[in-house]
């Protein structure tokens, strides 16, 4: 079984964020970059499925140069090869453009002309948190989508997924190829072993730019974005209101506060 995992490099949530005043995009130089947490679960699931079916796992990442570190991490976990789409013109891409680039990379020669059985993504990137890319990618590829999976089963012809929904859970099924996105409940991602880290250094990573994908710079990045940030403001940090120590009447004091705000 041939599997592609889409992984995104994101700023570490624990670090302070800044937006560039020039173009209102995230100042990615100012923060530590890590693999999107949810994507570790996607890589793990891909590896487990590949181990069961004697398959191959390709990691696909769109992002600046330092994204190589995230691809290497996936390779050191056990993925077989990487595709890195990097181009200055991609800076500021919206989800519509991101999905177009990922779809084009899958269709390219390095992407084996789209000959994949499964495309696995995280269900959400921790920086923008839009959860748009999996559904958009499925739409572009004309493939079934099985999103928010907490369990994935496949017999090589079909895939069945147990998925979390807003109101409970579903079991859904489709033929292959298909697009799957996973939630963190699905597995326990492995840590790269020393051997894995050494092996990763020799695994192939192809680097593609927009020209290689036959895409026009005007269609992607901030220039091609179909939504535009007009303005942004740093929200004033919340400040501590009143703090009281419970001397046996904390609950009563609290209810007086709630009443003063008309909340009870």
């Amino acid at each position, binding site marked *: 079984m041939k599997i592609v995992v889409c992984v995104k490099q994101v700023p570490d949530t624990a670090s302070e964020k800044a937006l560039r005043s020039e173009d209102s995009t995230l100042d990615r130089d100012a923060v530590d970059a890590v693999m999107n947490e949810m994507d570790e679960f996607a890589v793990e699931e891909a590896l487990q499925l590949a181990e069961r079916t004697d398959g191959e796992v390709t990691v696909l990442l769109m992002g600046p140069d330092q994204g190589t570190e995230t691809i290497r991490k996936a390779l050191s976990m056990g993925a077989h090869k990487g595709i890195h789409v990097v181009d200055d013109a991609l800076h500021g891409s919206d989800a519509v453009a991101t999905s177009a680039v990922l779809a084009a990379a899958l269709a390219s020669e390095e992407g084996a002309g789209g000959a994949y059985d499964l495309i696995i993504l995280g269900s959400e990137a921790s920086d923008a948190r839009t959860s748009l890319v999996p559904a958009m990618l499925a739409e572009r590829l004309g493939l079934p989508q099985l999103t928010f999976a907490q369990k994935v089963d496949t017999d090589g012809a079909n895939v069945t997924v147990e998925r979390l929904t807003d109101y409970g859970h579903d079991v859904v099924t489709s033929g292959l190829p298909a697009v799957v996105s996973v939630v963190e409940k699905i597995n326990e991602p492995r840590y790269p072993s020393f051997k894995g880290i050494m092996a990763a250094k020799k695994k192939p990573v192809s680097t593609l730019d927009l020209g290689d994908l036959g895409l026009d710079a005007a269609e992607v990045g901030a220039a091609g974005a179909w939504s535009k940030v007009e303005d942004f403001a740093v929200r004033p940090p919340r400040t501590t209101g009143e703090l009281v120590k419970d001397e046996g009447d*904390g609950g009563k004091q609290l209810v007086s506060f709630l009443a003063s705000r008309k909340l009870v």
Partner: protein
Amino acid sequence: MAEVLVLVDHVDGAVRKPTLELLTIARRIGEPVAVHLGAGADTAASTLGEYGATRVLAADAPEFGGYLVVPKVDALEQAVEAVGPVAVLVPSSAEGKEIAARLAVRLGSGLITDAVDLEAGDDGPVATQSAFAAAFTVKSRVTNGVPVITVKPNSAAPEAASAAGAVEPLEVSFGDAAKGTKVVSRTPRESTGRPELTEAAIVVSGGRGVNGAENFHVVESLADSLGAAVGASRAAVDAGWYPHTNQVGQTGKTVSPQLYIAAGISGAIQHRAGMQTSKTIVAINKDAEAPIFDLVDYGVVGDLFQVLPQLTEEVESRKG
């Protein structure tokens, strides 16, 4: 006047509250036209009309329930063709966002997701989004195609504004992809009788300080006295004390209620990411140095097992 399409979120014609919020917001940019997919359009129409829908485009077919997302995208796409709206508004639920995502790609439209506010602008609707755990407020606009915008629950108070709400059939033809993902079964979560976490006006959450599944009833009792939903920190969820569906935070749900009460939660950045836009925040924690106190409107330094039951009792007694 220009028309705005609003996708209705409903259960067999019982309209969910976020749809009423959407209709209220839609009126700022045009005349709302509701799109009702599935059973119960006639039941829904009176509510939709009461909140300003001039027309209700209705379609029902087994595909809507039997297959994932794509049949609804087909229908909405055809509604866009029929109406020529100035914008399409969709509730920011997991399903709503996926419908919007695929629709935007099909229409060649830009998409703004998780808007918390929307206003009319010279070049089309301007949406407010809250970014990076609410550290930034961003105003954005769609520059290509018919704007597709998903709006978060609790972004506006629903306001009635009587309109015709006339039901009109919407003819839908399904494409090849419509039957791509078949639904084998749906298992609704066991009903707790409490409001939906992301839609609730009040949320009471418990963390590691609750110290065991058997103690969560102190959180639930307070929630019930306030008509609130129950949330939990990841620590409480990972310990198996409360279901994952109730997790609030970066890898859980984002909530933005009128009132958020955190009990026995330290206030880690990943937890804050899911609750920081709440209008009023209250915390009970026995550690005066807990970071959650940095963002509260009111905090009680004390033992939650003393404070919560007293609070519950006081709330009950005020109800008379």
